[in-house]
């Protein structure tokens, strides 16, 4: 930042009349106005964010006062008797995101390792561009394909066999419907794989070459050098990408609401229908008939907001840590 103002600050600071003349000079040359205008727009970003937080907090006052922290652990969602509890939605959001991570992390990190360590750079770049296109696909299109393609396939080839073989386990109990926690988890997994992949790949590529070469010189196979040296080095960056993908999965609305079954319940079975915070807001917001009902939904939005903020912050810290280590060595 020093460089851009070097020219102006070369002269020693003048006295009062000199400063006033300089101010008028800047005013006339338009610099002061430019500064103020751009400052104002930058400040508006702060303003908007504060406004969002304020609105979420203020417009959820009724349920906050009535239920307090109980809101987070009650599982009754009864608009008729105005008893609202967030537990089924928090549960659904967490379960589907966890499932998604379970599937997406091995896929994403595995493919990132391949692209960073083994693939020739041209192919690696081309393929990673293709995978970034996956990240650009809108959520509603994932939902569309989810309903008409993925859910029937999942039901026929995965859920029915699993239910047949392991139906006595609580994890696979219950009628097989196609939609449900598992379907939502799978769709989310497909949506977050590109994020894990592209960030992990970049992080792996930023590991200094001498780390790899040192391992290979000691007689390690390429895999051993990768798995035991490079990946641990990049560990916090990869963790960061996982957190980022988690934050994205938590907030996903459309694809989830189209395949999760829309039933607010806490159920152990993967095949059971469930609900997520974003999905219930999307479904019930326009028809929440009483103020308490609307505000309960807004409070759910507040919970989601808070959780994604925390996870995003953790992600940034983790990613920055790897970058720092990379350049320090």
């Amino acid at each position, binding site marked *: 930042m020093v460089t851009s103002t070097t020219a102006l600050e070369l002269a020693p600071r003048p006295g009062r009349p000199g400063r006033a003349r300089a101010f008028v000079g800047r005013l006339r040359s338009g610099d002061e106005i430019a500064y*103020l205008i751009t*400052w104002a727009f930058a*400040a*508006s970003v702060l*303003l908007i964010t504060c406004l969002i937080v304020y609105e979420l907090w203020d417009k959820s006052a009724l349920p906050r006062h009535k239920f307090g922290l109980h809101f987070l652990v009650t599982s009754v969602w*009864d608009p008729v008797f105005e008893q609202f509890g967030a537990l089924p939605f928090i549960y659904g959001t967490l379960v589907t995101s966890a499932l998604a991570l379970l599937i997406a992390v091995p896929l994403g990190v595995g493919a990132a390792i391949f692209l960073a360590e083994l693939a020739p750079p041209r192919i690696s770049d081309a393929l990673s561009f293709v995978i970034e296109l996956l990240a650009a696909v809108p959520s509603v299109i994932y939902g569309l394909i989810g309903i008409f393609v993925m859910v029937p396939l999942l039901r026929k080839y995965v859920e029915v066999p699993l239910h047949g073989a392991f139906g006595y386990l609580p994890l696979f109990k219950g009628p097989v*419907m196609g939609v449900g926690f598992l379907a939502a988890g799978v769709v989310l997994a497909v949506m977050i794989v590109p994020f894990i992949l592209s960030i992990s790949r970049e992080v792996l590529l930023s590991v200094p070459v001498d780390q790899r070469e040192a391992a290979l010189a000691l007689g390690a196979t390429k895999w051993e050098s990768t798995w035991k040296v490079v990946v641990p080095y990049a560990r916090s960056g990869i963790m960061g990408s996982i957190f980022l993908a988690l934050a994205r999965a938590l907030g996903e609305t459309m694809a989830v609401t189209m395949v999760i079954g829309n*039933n607010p319940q806490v159920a152990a079975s993967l095949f059971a229908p469930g609900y997520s915070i974003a999905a219930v807001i999307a479904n019930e917001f326009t*028809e929440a008939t009483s103020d308490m009902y609307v505000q309960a939904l807004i409070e759910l939005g507040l919970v989601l907001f808070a959780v994604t903020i925390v996870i995003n912050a953790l992600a940034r810290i983790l990613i920055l840590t790897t970058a720092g280590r990379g350049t320090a060595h």
Partner: protein
Amino acid sequence: MTKRSLKQMATAVAFGLILVAGLISRPRPSSPAPAVPADRLQINAAGATFPYPIYSKWFDEYHKMHPDLEINYQSIGSGGGIRQLQSGTVDFGASDMPLKDEQLGQFKVKPLHFPTVMGAVVPTYNVPGVTGDLKFTQKALAGIFMGKITKWNDPEIANANSGAKLPGDDIVVVHRSEGSGTTFIWTDFLSKADPDWKAKVGSNSSVNWPVGLGGKGNEGVSGLVQQTPNSIGYVELIYAIQNHMHYGLVQNAAGVFLKADLAGVTAAAAAAAKSMPDDFRVSITDAPGKNAYPISSFTWLLIPSSFSDAAKRDAITGFLRWMLKEGQQYTEALSYAPLPKEVVAKEMKAISKIK
């Protein structure tokens, strides 16, 4: 903080406030957008999905007759219609559930109920291997939707269907995920059919469903039943017909198994037509008589009792008059029963109540 930076901050804050004020004050509802004919009127409405097929037909036909009037109706469910009318974000609403007195009290401008058509709610199912029509007793339906009856070959179902080959698979229940008048009609019927249901679940536009998947709108429930084997859901008759879905016969109060049709719905409304209250709020589920289809209902447009915009009021009352006369001709093709003559006459008089 130096004086100069204080001044800068003050100027910037003032600038920011002016900018924000400008942005917020820009939309003035009364100012027309450029390049749009001044007499073009767009009216926004939202509500029930139960009558959506006939409403969308009506609004389309009416628009063809009055090209400068567009009635934009969004089917988001009766609950949505009621809420948006309450917030004032739509000009009128639609609901299959008559508003209770407490609900009416929450409106700044009291809405008036205008019945439009009568329809039937049917149990639609998708059971592989079952091609004929299943018969459902009242207890069977209550049991299925309460989660007490879990398999298709349960005696309560099997005994009424001696010819059918029912699988031993689990029943997948599908209900509405949002506030729905159709849910009200269905649960109203179930409450009359089964005291256990009435005690544990009750009847309303949105209930605490013991089991099942939630679909959005009549459309969503039909879609889910279509896609999910061994499922059963409740939808308005036309949705099952238009999509070639199986729907079962329901046992009425007189013990007769009836398949939903216009005659059955009209018979169910016969008694109510004679004794229709002035505010048109009435329930015709589980009506007496051997020909009455037990899950029938009126559906209503919720029109505010007074308008600030005279053009909108006249457009809407004009539509209402057309709907009660010529509009009724379109109902049968879409499997809705036209309103009884007595009700039409009463409504024509009630239109004058709209200020």
